[in-house]
């Protein structure tokens, strides 16, 4: 692989960032394909367990967005 393509696990809130991601898609905006999106019902659903589980199963980074 020529370039380092990291995997970024993204936890997106259904009502905020997930909506933004959807809108970005509908508007045909381009963004890097390194993110792997997991939709959560609310950022309040987030738990430190998820972050550690993401990292120890091989993610390069974790992104939490509300």
């Amino acid at each position, binding site marked *: 692989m020529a*370039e*380092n393509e*990291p995997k*970024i696990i993204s936890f997106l809130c259904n*009502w*905020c*960032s*997930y*909506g*933004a*991601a*959807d*809108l*970005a898609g509908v*508007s045909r*905006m*381009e*963004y*890097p394909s*390194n*993110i792997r999106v997991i939709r959560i019902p609310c950022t309040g659903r987030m738990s*430190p367990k998820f*972050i*550690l589980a993401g*990292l*120890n*199963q*091989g993610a*390069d*980074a*974790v*992104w*939490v*967005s*509300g």
Partner: protein
Amino acid sequence: MKNFLEHTGIEPGRLHFSWISSAESTKFVDVVKKITHEVKMLDPANKRYVKTEPKVD
């Protein structure tokens, strides 16, 4: 959480938080670009937290 993970030796760039409203698709794209860029800057060999097969001595 971020402070704490860094304290125990995980690099700062491996955990990100942000706040984007559902109308801010441009901000979403910007943040994705920025984070991807930052993570690419990190050395992939430093992924310390990955669980490997258990060692058998």
